[in-house]
């Protein structure tokens, strides 16, 4: 049976193990993991889950970084008929446990070398803490429940607009549809060679950069997610003669800023360099291609977890286009995806800006265990609301102009102000706070800025404010895996509010960027 006939991800892996058993599914740390070995590890882990009492429909949280263990656990969970819930593995144990409780998970899978420490952190009465190393020696010949195309393969958590994270339910059918849409839209073939450092626990890294190459049995060189040294990525592209890589805009800006002699790298093997998951800057495309002597390889793309992942990308090998405002076209939607632009619930004409809504056979059916959020997600029943603003030109090409909601895009992640504000407001000295995305036009891109109003009572000392700032930075890092660009403490009442008491995020941003917040002496700490 060819991969094109696969109806579930499990069927796909089984086909791969039969048809291309000795091909590497991926290469990690120079070690290939063959499809045959991947399949037996997946079955062993599924057998282990079965023996520990995990039943079909149960949720299993994965707190695993890039590496083989992720794939054994991710597909092993699905093989056992359970739902995988990948989470950011850098979160503290308390955060992982609270997310596990939120989705009613029966087990949390952690890296083998972290098992003892995590077990100490997580109370024995809660979900069991396990690792793939424990599945060694388990039988992989059990008969597992049949996995159907309409079954949920995994739940992708995204930030929630009310501060509560929302779990996007993704089915095997939707995933395979989107995999095929991506392959067709980006003209990917089995001859492509993928290099990726994107997190495998997140949609673009997981679906585009691992499921697509698995589907095609294309070569995949997987790297750790750390971007401490962008040279590791560029060297891997050069050494592996990669044809396809993907990242948010900021990662390409990092390359431009940190690589002193781009000419030292030969990236000429690249055919497609996807720039997505963050607003795409035309300047990044131009500068990156110029610096690394490439032409028409960086393509902008657009997508979101609620549509599985990919919605459209620019056509490879054709020059990017920009409108008069400097906004880059992200292309026409993939096959069977329909985009409408709506304002006040009504579709608008070509050229007019409104909220982007999407109809796709790969759309999610909604959020796990959140009927209210699910109801709010849909427009005219079959379209999902993206929360992004944009327009379609007369040729049906999409331009993304901004965001309908006050969401912050930082390092490829979507952050809702409320979840940051909750963290800042835990400090006893803070009366109210506002989180906004600040983009000063520099290479650092949009940064998360936290503005916290102090309570009226006795003003804290400089040392106390310093310590409080550190607390906020650490708490945000713990919870979201990202650091804020800056934390400011302001005078009481410095944050602008609407007449009915809502924070005016965009006005606050304007006050800061215009320098008025500084001029009016509203900033208490730090002095810059």
């Amino acid at each position, binding site marked *: 049976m060819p991969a094109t006939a696969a109806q579930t991800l499990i069927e796909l892996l089984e086909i791969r193990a039969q048809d291309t058993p000795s091909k590497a599914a991926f290469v990690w740390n120079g070690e290939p993991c063959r499809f045959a070995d991947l399949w037996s590890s997946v079955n062993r882990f599924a057998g282990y889950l079965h023996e520990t009492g995990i039943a079909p429909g149960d949720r299993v949280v994965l707190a695993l970084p890039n590496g083989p263990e992720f794939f054994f656990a991710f597909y092993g969970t699905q093989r056992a008929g359970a739902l995988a819930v990948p989470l950011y593995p850098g979160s503290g144990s308390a955060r992982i446990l609270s997310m596990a409780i939120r989705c009613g998970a029966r087990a949390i899978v952690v890296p083998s070398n972290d098992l003892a420490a995590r077990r100490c952190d997580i109370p024995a009465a809660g979900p069991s803490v396990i690792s793939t190393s424990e599945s060694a020696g388990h039988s992989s010949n059990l008969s597992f429940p049949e996995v159907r195309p309409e079954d949920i393969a995994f739940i992708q958590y995204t930030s929630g607009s009310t501060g509560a994270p929302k779990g996007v339910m993704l089915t095997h059918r939707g995933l395979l549809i989107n995999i095929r849409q991506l392959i067709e839209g980006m003209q990917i073939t089995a001859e492509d060679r993928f290099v990726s450092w994107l997190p495998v626990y997140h949609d673009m890294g997981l679906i585009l950069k691992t499921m697509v190459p698995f589907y095609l049995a294309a070569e995949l060189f997987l790297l750790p997610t750390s*971007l401490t040294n962008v040279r590791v990525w560029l060297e891997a592209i050069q050494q592996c003669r990669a044809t396809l890589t993907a990242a948010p805009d900021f990662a390409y800006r990092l390359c431009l800023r940190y690589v002193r002699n781009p000419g030292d790298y030969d990236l000429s093997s690249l055919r497609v360099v996807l720039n997505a998951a963050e607003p795409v800057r035309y300047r990044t495309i131009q500068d990156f291609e110029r610096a690394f002597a490439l032409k028409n390889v960086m393509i902008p793309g657009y997508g979101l977890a609620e549509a599985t992942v990919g919605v459209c990308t620019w056509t490879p090998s054709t020059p990017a286009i920009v409108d008069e405002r400097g906004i880059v076209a992200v292309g026409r939607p993939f096959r069977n995806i329909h985009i409408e632009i709506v304002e006040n619930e009504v579709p608008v004409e070509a050229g007019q800006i409104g909220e982007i809504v999407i109809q796709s056979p790969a759309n999610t059916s909604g959020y796990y265990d959140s009927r209210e959020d699910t109801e709010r997600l849909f427009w005219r029943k079959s379209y999902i609301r993206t929360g992004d603003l944009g327009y379609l030109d007369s040729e049906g090409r999409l331009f993304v102009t901004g965001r309908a909601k006050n969401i912050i895009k930082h390092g490829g992640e979507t952050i809702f102000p409320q979840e940051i504000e909750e963290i800042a407001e835990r400090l006893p000295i803070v009366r109210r706070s506002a989180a906004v995305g600040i983009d000063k036009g520099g290479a650092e891109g949009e940064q998360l800025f936290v503005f916290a109003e102090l309570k009226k009572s006795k003003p804290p000392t400089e040392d106390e404010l310093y310590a409080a700032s*550190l607390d906020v930075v650490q708490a945000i890092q713990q919870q979201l895996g990202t*650091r804020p660009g800056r934390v400011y403490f302001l005078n009481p009442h410095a944050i602008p509010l609407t007449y009915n008491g809502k924070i005016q995020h965009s006005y606050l941003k304007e006050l800061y960027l215009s320098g008025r917040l500084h001029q009016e002496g509203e900033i208490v700490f730090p002095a810059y």
Partner: protein
Amino acid sequence: MDKKMLVELDDIAKTVGLVLGRRNVAPSDRIFEDLGAESADMLNIVVTVEEKYGITIDEMCVPSIRTIVDLYELVRRTAA
């Protein structure tokens, strides 16, 4: 006022600490290896000291910053 006088090693260490959420940053600490910074954090560190001292750091010098002392010396040279 002479800007050069205002650049204190301890201040630089505290500023970097604030960006990275790290207490007790020592001058000899390596920003990536010891303090756990990623490339994106380095950009933020540079922007922050630029704003703090009202200077513009030459982009070409950024890749050579290893430790807090390196950053301090670069800021001092730039502010001079």
